[in-house]
Every structure is written in C-alpha cells, then in structure tokens.
C-alpha cells in the first residue's frame, strides 16, 4: 500500500496531482490516454486507487443504535413546521414598521400635517412665477418629492386595508389621503405631469370609496361591519385593475425617486 512518489521515472511529467485528476475522472481525455500508455503511471494509478479505497473504508463510524431513526424522529417531530415564504414575511414586516410609524394615531395627524405643509410650500412655490430663486426645476423637484411621499402613504394604506385586520380608522385616513390627492392634482395642473396626474386620477375613486365608507350604511344594508380591515370592494388588490394600480404606484414612486422630476 505504499504510494509511489519516491522514484522519478520517465513519466514524471504526469504529476501526482494530474494522476489524482485522472483517478477522479476530471482529467482531459488526452491526459488519460497518456497515463494509460505508460506502465509505471498505470502502476501508480492502481496504487492510488487502492489507497483511496482503503481511505474510503477506513473511516470508522460511531455505532448508532438500531432505533436511531425513531430517536431522531422523537427529537424533531415537534419542530416540523412548514416555513412561510421568507420574502413575503419580510415585506409584511417592512410594511408593518412603516405603517406603525406613519399611521399610528399620534403620528398620522402629524404626518398628514407635514404632507399638507409641504404641498402648500410646493403650491406656493409654483405660483411664484417671478421668483427666480425657486425656479421651475426646483418647484418640480419639491412637488415630485411630496407626491412620492403621498404615493407611499397611499400604498401602505391600500395594502393595509387589503391585508390587515384593521386596527385603525380606514375612513379617516382615506379622507386625509383623498384631500392630499386632490391638492396634488391641482398642483400638477401647472406642470407637464400627465402620467402622474393620470395615476392620481386613477387613485382618487378608490380613496373616495374608502373615505365615504359608512358603517351605518353597511349595517342598514345587512353588510357585515367592514370598518376593521375589510374594504368596500371584496379584497380589491386581487382585482387585476387594482393590481395594476398598485404596480403603477410602485413604478411611479421609483421613477420619482430616481429622476426627482414630474413625468
């Protein structure tokens, strides 16, 4: 069982490393052929194979009990659960955090006030035609940033009303978002932002529906109370048109973030 690396021979051009590659069937065909032509190399290859077989068989294993499988099962059976898809849970977690930040009662009014304030500044800036410091570009950038924030809030809101059990007031939030939406539409009238305007127009009826959603109306119509996490339309995000709107919101947000300009 002695490996042969002691005596160089005429085939020494075939190194131990190449020989091992031949043994592991990782060598090129030409190298294999060269190897097999030479008696000494063949002998070394045989020796390597014998050594590797000895190595393969030698590694002693701890003796496992006959009922090892059952023991293993007893240890893991309680832990066998099907994991939820990771990406989805991360996404929900991220949304949850943002939702908590923006939509919590103590912050929602403040965030709304900030949005309205920024909109007012943008609107005011848009009207100051003679003010050369705040040029058109700057106005548009400011408006783009505000619309981006508005779209983020709308996206969170729409996701929330579709997925969540509704721990906050949908209607009040929808009314605030609706007001912002209309202000932005007005502000956009002075800019060439047809795609953004169109998106806000598409968003408005949805927000309007939630803003007008009345518990009393539903109760009188025999509809279960939907003020906690359900929506006027049955799970609207499953609707292809609504999915498309959500996609447009995401795409627009990205576009505004990238270009910081109204499109």
């Amino acid at each position: 069982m002695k490996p042969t690396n002691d005596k160089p021979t005429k085939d020494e051009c075939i190194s131990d490393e190449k020989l091992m590659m031949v043994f592991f069937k990782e060598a090129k065909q030409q190298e294999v052929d060269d190897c097999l032509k030479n008696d000494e190399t063949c002998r070394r290859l045989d020796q390597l194979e014998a050594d590797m077989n000895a190595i393969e068989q030698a590694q002693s294993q701890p003796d496992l009990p006959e009922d090892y499988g059952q023991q293993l099962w007893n240890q893991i059976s309680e832990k066998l659960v099907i994991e939820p898809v990771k990406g989805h849970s991360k996404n929900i977690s991220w949304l949850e955090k943002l939702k908590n930040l923006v939509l919590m009662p103590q912050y929602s009014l403040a965030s709304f006030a900030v949005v309205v304030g920024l909109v007012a500044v943008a609107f005011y800036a848009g009207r100051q035609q003679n003010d050369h410091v705040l040029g058109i570009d700057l106005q548009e950038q400011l408006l783009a940033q505000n619309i981006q924030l508005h779209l983020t809030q709308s996206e969170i809101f729409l996701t929330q009303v579709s997925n969540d059990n509704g721990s906050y007031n949908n209607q009040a939030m929808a009314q605030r978002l609706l007001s912002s939406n209309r202000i932005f539409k007005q502000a956009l009238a002075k800019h060439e932002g047809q795609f953004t305007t169109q998106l806000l127009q598409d968003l408005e009826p949805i927000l309007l529906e939630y803003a007008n959603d009345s518990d009393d109306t539903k109760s009188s119509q025999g509809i279960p109370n939907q003020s906690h996490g359900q929506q006027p339309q049955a799970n609207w995000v499953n609707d292809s048109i609504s999915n498309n709107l959500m996609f447009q919101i995401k795409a627009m947000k990205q576009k505004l973030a990238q270009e910081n300009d109204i499109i």
Partner: protein
Amino acid sequence: MVNEIDDKTVQQASMGDKQAFRLIVLHYAQAVNRLAYRYTADASYAEDIAQETFIKAFQAINRYQPQAKFSTWLLRITTNSAIDYLRKANRQMADSLDQEDIQVDIPNHQLNAEDQLDLNQRLSQAMTDLSDVERLAVTMKHHQGYSINETAQVLNINANACKQTLFRAVQKLRKQLTSEVSL
C-alpha cells in the same frame, strides 16, 4: 449505495403527511448521520446535522423533483447542512473556505510498540486531523461523487483552489498509509 424508499411515501410526505415523513426519517436516518459524520468527524455534530437535515427536508419536500433519486436530494441537503453547521460552529472553517490555501499538516502519528493503532484508526484519526474544508472536499468528491466544479461551488471556492485542497487532503491521508508501511 442507499436503498430508496418508495415513491408513494415521498409523495404523501410532500403533501404534508407527517406519518409518511416519519417513515422517511426511519429509512434514511442512519445514512444521513453517517454522511454527516464523514463531513465532520464528530459524532455530536453529526447528530445535530442529521436533525437539521430532516427539518429542512420537511420544509422543502414539496419542491422535491422526482426525476432525481430521493436519497440524492436528501444527501445534498445533508451536505449543505454540514457546511452551514461547520461555518456556524467554527469561525476558522468560515475563514478557511475563503482562504483555502491555509495549510495545516496532520501530525504524523508515529506508532510505537506499546501504542500501535491499527490502520483504520490511523486513517480515521487522519480524517479528523484534516481541516474542515479538506475533509469536506475529499468526502464530497470521493465519497459523494460530486465533480470538482460542484464541490468548488458548494464550498464557495474556485475550481483550482478546490483541486489544491483535494490534492492536499489526499496527500495527507496517503501519508498515513506510507507511515504504516514504513513501520
């Protein structure tokens, strides 16, 4: 060679049938543990890896493609679990996978008349003395039949480094055989 469990059991398990999965555990537990031991040369590691393997397998079994042998699929999970486990258990392992040229010689266990280990014990000891990455490489290539490229990919090293690692491991193991002869 591992005897395959019947397809029906696998199919039932893939639909979430825990009792069917129990049969899978009973069938493959020893094979999984043995392979995990080969990778780690540590019985307690092997035990942990076996548990982790079956838990992961249960979570992923609905993605198993019947075109491949079930044992191949399961032992691949074992391989990945072993690598993950060693990475977590031993910071040096994680480093060695990134710096595969680290070389540690196996102590030459010189035998004397009073304390003569037999060949199997010596080789077993030699396997234990290999670095984790060397043991993984030689087991994946020689025992599991992975290609160099696959081994390199799983170990996250390049193919040349993998060859070097494998060569070094084989040389160290063969050295033990040389010592045995030279006694």
